[in-house]
């Protein structure tokens, strides 16, 4: 394959609109550089550079269609959701640090799994918690770099565990974590005060739930993977708290974020409904109804204001 053809193929990672504007000039730069270095095919570094920036350009194009405030709210909600699900996965699924009070002993680590974790997902999830910590410390750029490492690691877990003959968290958990991580890349999380409040509430809610489970003498770890509606219920609670807080802060720009982030949670619940019993279907319906009701609030508020003021030209929510 000629160098030009190989570079053209790599440039396909960029969106069509970008290629129409920059495609030919970028190709000229690539060919000039290849000739200067006497290369007849793209180097691995060139390929990685084009793939990375091409995907970023696609993400920017996709998110550019949402207004900046909606993107920021989506990122905050997604990061809060990611935090909640990471904590739930770590504490309820991978590592149960307290002795179970009930008749069932805690599940042991799968042979060959590093550390005290139930599956190979444990160390990855534990490392991923560093991302929300970086956000809380006011390091959004470092948090994004952390996501760039953690998300591929989560996505590659099914393949890695298959090769190493180890266990992994459930696929729907991994899919939801990756989806929340990608959504949180939709905009830089800069307002750490706002996020800190959300994260604090989420952490408190999750820890409260864990404490409740301990107090009841109940080992929820097996349920986290194989059992009943515990996860959806616990996950819905913190999300509802986060959503309510974000409504208070963000108001009208929330419709798109609610749909985006809510769809991830509902996808997670729906996967459980398909895999488990009817309990999840009920929880999914309740969750959908709750999200739909909340999403209608800003619309209703604006309509009310329109009626009161008689102003038909006010901006749509």
């Amino acid at each position, binding site marked *: 394959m000629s160098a030009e053809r190989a570079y053209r193929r790599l440039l396909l990672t960029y969106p069509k609109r970008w290629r129409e504007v920059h495609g030919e*000039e970028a*190709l*000229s*730069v690539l060919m000039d*550089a290849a000739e200067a270095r006497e290369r007849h095919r793209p180097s691995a570094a060139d390929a990685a550079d084009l793939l990375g*920036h*091409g995907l970023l350009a696609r993400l920017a194009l996709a998110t550019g269609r949402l207004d900046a405030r909606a993107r920021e709210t989506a990122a905050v909600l997604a990061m809060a959701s990611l935090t909640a699900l990471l904590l739930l996965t770590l504490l309820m699924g991978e590592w149960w640090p307290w002795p179970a009070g009930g008749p069932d002993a805690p599940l042991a680590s799968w042979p060959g799994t590093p550390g005290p974790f139930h599956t190979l997902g444990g160390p990855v999830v534990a490392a991923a918690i560093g991302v929300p910590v970086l956000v809380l410390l006011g390091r959004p750029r470092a948090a994004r770099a952390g996501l760039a490492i953690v998300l591929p690691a989560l996505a590659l877990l099914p393949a890695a565990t298959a090769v190493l003959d180890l266990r992994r968290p459930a696929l729907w958990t991994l899919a939801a974590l990756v989806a929340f991580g990608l959504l949180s890349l939709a905009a830089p999380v800069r307002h750490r005060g706002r996020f800190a409040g959300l994260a604090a509430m989420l952490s408190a809610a999750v820890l409260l739930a864990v404490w409740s489970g301990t107090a009841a003498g109940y080992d929820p770890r097996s349920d986290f993977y194989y059992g009943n509606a515990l996860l959806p219920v616990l996950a819905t609670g913190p999300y509802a708290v986060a959503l309510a807080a974000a409504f208070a802060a963000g108001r009208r720009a929330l419709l798109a974020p609610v749909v985006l982030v809510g769809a991830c949670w509902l996808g997670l619940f729906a996967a459980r409904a398909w895999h488990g019993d009817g309990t999840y279907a009920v929880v999914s319906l309740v969750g959908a109804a709750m999200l739909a009701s909340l999403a209608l609030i800003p619309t209703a508020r604006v309509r009310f204001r329109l009626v009161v003021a008689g102003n038909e030209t006010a901006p749509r929510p």
Partner: protein
Amino acid sequence: MYTGSMTEAMREPTYLILTAMAAGRQHGYGLVQEVAELSGGRVRLRAGTLYGALDRLTAEGLIAADGEEVVAGRFRRSYVLSEDGARALAVETAQRRATAGVAVRRLRALGVQV
């Protein structure tokens, strides 16, 4: 409008690209060569990084496209520094010069010649 210096330091490749353009209009590969020369070979811009920076700088109004031509069958688009871009470069240069001045004074106090 340039707001970068208010929130975060300008990154090295961005600073070098703006410095390269301060000499006049440049096309993509010309920028790659100029940046390599300015940085003493430390920074070698790849096409993805270069066009990511050019897109961002154009969106921020610091540079603008300025003419297209085909040379030896290759399409080239040139870019120039805008007035906002020149101001941003001046602000960043002043900040870097001030920091460098402090570093030089402190190193001399330690007996290290710079």
